[in-house]
């Protein structure tokens, strides 16, 4: 049977009633903030391309549209969009169709509409997570009679709740009741909370703590807080694929295992397609590869008339795909076989190959395999050893040699598999020793300057418990390339005709050295700068202008001509090169020159040669003057 998918369904339930437009002077109204929250949230969903479905319910609307609308109940609540995968249409609707309206509705009624929607629209679908996010200022009096029924229903249906409010809500015990709550000062509080809001907050807390006694209140967010957290695009997540296999030691000791890719360089799921610039259609563009002989006519040949070959020294050996397939290395397929065990320190970190790390656990639901694997992991750990293994993913893929390291964590144990190099992969480069070269040996004062630099730039700090805390965890930073990519895609999608936006400040900051460090290292850096003179070596300009190349060539040609005055080919080459450079400047003059040169060249005499060279050189100087741009452009 298939595993259940991590698919979720959620309802965004936003208050658009009139009180949402109220705000203290200089503050953004809660409506605008709430709208930003749902925009960011939907954006993330759209780009993450999850199969999660989303519905949008608005309350406080002037009209009413919901399935519970009966006998004047559940009024001013509109189901704007039913449960479906979010798309740009939804984003545009939020942008253009969601406005502040002039009614108010009971937020508990809205919650009931959402619950009903979730339950009816997920019927028959496999969803492992149901969630309702309520965005409101809680400024309506909620009728709390039904509250226990609602909680019971939420629990039964397994629906989780999140509240997004204009103000933060704190734990009573922590903040001290009444006195502090609602105190002005926090943005969004205005002059403090209204009576309606105060009683609503109590109901919210009651519900949340009933649903989750421990962490219920963690699911109550302020708008600002949420916007900050949502500015990051969702990290790319992939469901780990299980790779069941047997670890073997010799011929009679198999252990059932299952491997998962744990670390691998993630790529964007979608790639760019080429479209016609006018129609934006990809069908209008066709790419075609043709094959041609390496002759003067570039004679085209049919693809079917080509075969494949391989270079063998100066020869090319025809070797058809069929033959290659037949003669190629074949193996028995999937395996994880121990070749032997080696000391851990002999397997060096910088020799790790491949692009992934695989974590190996014992086979699913097999405690005996679990014990056997645990024995191996612990034995390796206690002996400081690794298993060197042959690993093959399946019959079609090439086998590897790799190391399986023991890994023992508080809550689990596993083997960590990394590929190791083959002899063919290694490049044994040697470099001059830095230690034995007096010229490069740093002095003691220089060394101590570096020492203080290291001191000032240590990225660990002690936290309250005296533990070392890492200030810069790379594996917690989202790949900036993806963030930027989605930022630009989103921008282009919503404002197609404007140039791409600059990088977001938070992203730039995330890639920089932490402020504390940047400040602390200023002194030591200055010291390093003083102690180590660094001078950029004047380089021969890599990109010469054509004039410079020309000059150089002229010089070497004349030398070459003098040396080999009988070498006709050199002369012809020389002249043709000159002409290539000169031609665009002035064609008629050039023709004249060509004729003259040909005359000179027919006479095998060095003196004539030098004359022709001088002639070209003078001509060139003139043309540079006349048309600087065209020459330097060549």
């Amino acid at each position, binding site marked *: 049977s298939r595993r259940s998918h991590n698919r979720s369904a959620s309802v965004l339930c936003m208050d658009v009633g009139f009180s949402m437009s109220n705000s203290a002077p200089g503050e953004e109204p809660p409506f605008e903030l709430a709208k930003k929250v749902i925009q960011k949230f939907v954006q993330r969903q759209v*780009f993450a391309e999850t199969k999660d479905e989303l519905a949008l319910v608005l309350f406080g609307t002037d009209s009413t549209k919901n399935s519970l609308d009966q006998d004047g109940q559940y009024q001013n609540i509109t189901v704007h969009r039913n449960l479906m995968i979010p798309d740009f249409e939804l984003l545009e609707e939020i942008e253009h169709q969601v406005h502040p309206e002039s009614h108010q509705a009971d937020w508990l009624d809205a919650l009931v509409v959402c619950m009903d929607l979730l339950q009816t629209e997920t019927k028959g679908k496999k969803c492992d997570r149901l969630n309702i996010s309520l965005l409101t200022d809680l400024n309506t009096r909620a009728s709390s009679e039904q509250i226990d029924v609602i909680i019971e229903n939420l629990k039964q249906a397994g629906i989780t709740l999140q509240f997004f409010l204009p103000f933060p809500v704190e734990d009573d015990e922590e903040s001290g009741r009444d006195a502090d709550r609602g105190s002005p000062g926090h943005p969004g509080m205005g002059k403090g909370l209204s009576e309606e809001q105060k009683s609503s907050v109590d109901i919210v807390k009651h519900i949340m703590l009933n649903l989750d006694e421990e962490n219920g209140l963690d699911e109550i967010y302020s708008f600002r807080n949420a916007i900050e957290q949502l500015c990051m695009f969702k990290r790319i997540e992939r469901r780990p694929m299980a790779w069941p296999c047997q670890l073997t030691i010799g011929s009679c000791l198999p252990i059932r295992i299952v491997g998962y890719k744990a670390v691998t360089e993630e790529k964007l799921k*979608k790639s760019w397609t080429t479209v016609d610039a006018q129609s934006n259609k990809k069908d209008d563009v066709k790419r075609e590869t043709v094959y041609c002989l390496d002759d003067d006519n570039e004679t085209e040949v049919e693809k079917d008339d080509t075969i494949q070959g391989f270079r063998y020294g100066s020869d*090319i050996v025809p070797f058809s795909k069929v033959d290659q397939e037949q003669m190629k290395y074949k193996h028995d397929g999937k395996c994880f076989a121990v070749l032997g065990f080696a000391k851990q320190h002999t397997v060096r970190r*910088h020799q790790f*190959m491949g692009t992934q790390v695989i974590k190996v656990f014992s086979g699913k639901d097999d405690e005996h395999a679990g*014990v056997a694997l*645990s024995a191996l992991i612990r034995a390796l750990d206690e002996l400081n050893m690794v298993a060197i293994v042959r690993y093959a993913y399946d019959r079609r893929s*090439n086998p590897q040699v790799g190391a399986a390291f023991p890994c023992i964590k508080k809550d689990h144990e596993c083997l960590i598999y990394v590929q190791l190099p083959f002899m063919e992969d*290694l490049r044994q480069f040697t470099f001059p020793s830095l230690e034995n070269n007096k010229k490069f040996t740093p002095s003691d004062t220089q060394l101590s300057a570096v020492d203080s630099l290291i001191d000032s730039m240590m990225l660990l700090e002690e936290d309250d418990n005296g533990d070392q805390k890492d200030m810069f965890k790379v594996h917690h930073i989202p790949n900036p390339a993806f963030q930027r990519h989605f930022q630009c895609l989103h921008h282009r999608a919503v404002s197609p005709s404007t140039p791409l936006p600059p990088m977001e400040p938070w992203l730039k900051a995330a890639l920089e050295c932490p402020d504390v460090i940047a400040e602390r290292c200023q002194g030591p850096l200055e010291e390093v700068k003083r102690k180590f003179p660094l001078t950029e070596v004047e380089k021969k300009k890599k990109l010469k202008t054509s004039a410079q190349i020309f000059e150089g060539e002229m010089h070497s040609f004349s030398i070459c001509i003098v040396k080999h005055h009988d070498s006709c080919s050199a002369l012809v080459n020389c002249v043709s090169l000159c002409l290539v450079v000169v031609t665009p400047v002035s064609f008629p003059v050039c023709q004249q020159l060509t004729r003259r040169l040909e005359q000179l060249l027919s006479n095998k005499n060095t003196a004539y040669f030098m004359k022709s060279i001088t002639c070209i050189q003078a001509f060139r100087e003139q043309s540079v003057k006349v048309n600087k741009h065209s020459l330097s452009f060549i």
Partner: protein
Amino acid sequence: MAEWNAYYRNEDDEEEQEEGEQSGGDYKITGRDSLVFLVDASKEMFIKGEDGQPSNFDMTMQVVRSVYASKIISSHRDLMALVFYGTEQSKDPSKSFKHVYVYHDLDEPGAKRVQEVDALRGGKGAQLAAETMGSGETSLGDALWCCANLYSDIKLRLSHKRLMIFTCRDKPHEGDSVKDRQARTKSGDLKETGVIIDLMHLMKPDGFDVAPFFRDIISPPEDESELGLQLEPCDKLEDLQKRVRAKEQKKRAQARLHLCLGEGINVAVGIYATAVTARKPAPIRLYRETNEPVRSKTRTFHTQTGSLLLPSEIKKSQVYGKKQIVMEKDEVDAIKKFEDPGMFLIGFKPMERLKRHHHIRPAAFIYPEEDEVKGSACLFSALLTKCHERNVFALCRCVSRRNYPPRFVALVPQKEEVDEGKVQISPSGFHVIYLPYADDMRTLDPPQCPTASQRQVDKMKEIVSKLRFKYRSDAFENPVIQQQYRNLEALALDMMAPEDTEDLIMPKVDQMDQRLGPLVQEFKDLVYPADYNPEGKPAAKRKTADTGGGAEKKPKVEVPEDELRAHVQNGTLGKLTVPVLKEACKKFGVHTTGTKKQELIDALVDQLGQ
């Protein structure tokens, strides 16, 4: 004329270029290596050894063949020549030398040459040699002169010129001082043009004395301390005979950039790839009729008008949330750009913070480039010394090329290591370890498992100890590549069958079983119950199969049209499986080039969404 040719470098030098920039400074390597085998063909060379040992000539041909075959794979652009001296017949391009026979001119080796050397091996080979060349007078001077001409006829830039003399006669001219002097002069001329002359003296019954004649002919050993002449001839031969089927890699920096410690503190470094996954050589497309290579041209044209499209006439697009997003090609590139190439220091961390499983690609290596920024080597060296001493690594943000987004790297200090023979094993510098981002870490749900008891662990420790070996990174050859090379060799040289490949990454099961003896059973008794079958499926799975009521559920491959349209409408096509989507594409006549799920979905939406 050498510069001339070097300037108009062959355009098919793509292999040379793919590795990126060449390293500067002392390591500048341009041009090709060359090697001339100068082999004595006198009667003495053909004398068979005792107990049917092959003759010196035969052994030499074996060596030549194996060097040819190795070079073809490791660096086929190197030039090689095979010249015999002391022959009766003469053959050389200038037709001006007697008793010198140029068997192979200085050129890239190919299959034909290997076969031609093969023809000189064994009894038949000796016979062929006698027929074509014969043995006659010896003038090493003429032979060396002839070789000098071979070199000077080459129009390519040669980086390394070596000449190897194979002989078993320590007095080739039998005391003829004129000929001796002539040979000395010619060898001097050759050495002056940068040719290194090596002697491979072969066994002869009363020993080979290098001193009287050859000492002045050959090049002095590169290292003063090493007495090159004392080497046993067999050692050198064995080295030469060792077949290496691996592509030789020239030392080149992938990129040269600045390691920026702070504002205005830039250390110039070169990045080197020290381990790169070797792949099978790429195939070349040939024209069936003539077996000549063809070139491929790719062009982009408009489907309707058929006209070629300029880069300005195309754009790039992606579809998200049912919306097409279009960008210019330039914009697509610009999105990737964060900053100019360089390594920017963030800070330092203790080595134990570098997690073993934070691995996404093979490491690189950096070494200072003193001739880019003077003072680089000193600061680099100080940083290396201190990082090593304090057991810390440097964390840097790294942009390795233009328009590459940044990656974070750990610079791990590496002190120079040498072996007993003072040969460098690891050079000093920093290893560059690429670190994963949050997106690269996959969330796993580790299963809860029982842990082993100390008794069980101890038994496994015995097993582990029995199977200990010393790991060496160069001990394992890639069987896939080795097989491919052998197949090619077999085809090129018309061999009946390729040489056998030993699969070095196959567990030596029999030896392992033997070493372990009863330990395996003892361990199994400790961890596995008697009725447990570690090779079978887990019990839980079997149960569902038994009670499943017989027929297995086959995946439903077809979806009714209205349902499909509803999926398109709601953007829920992603819920369907790939086979279902493929079936749907077929049903609606949707043509797709791709087989990826997203491509199928896009195609269906295109067709049905309108």
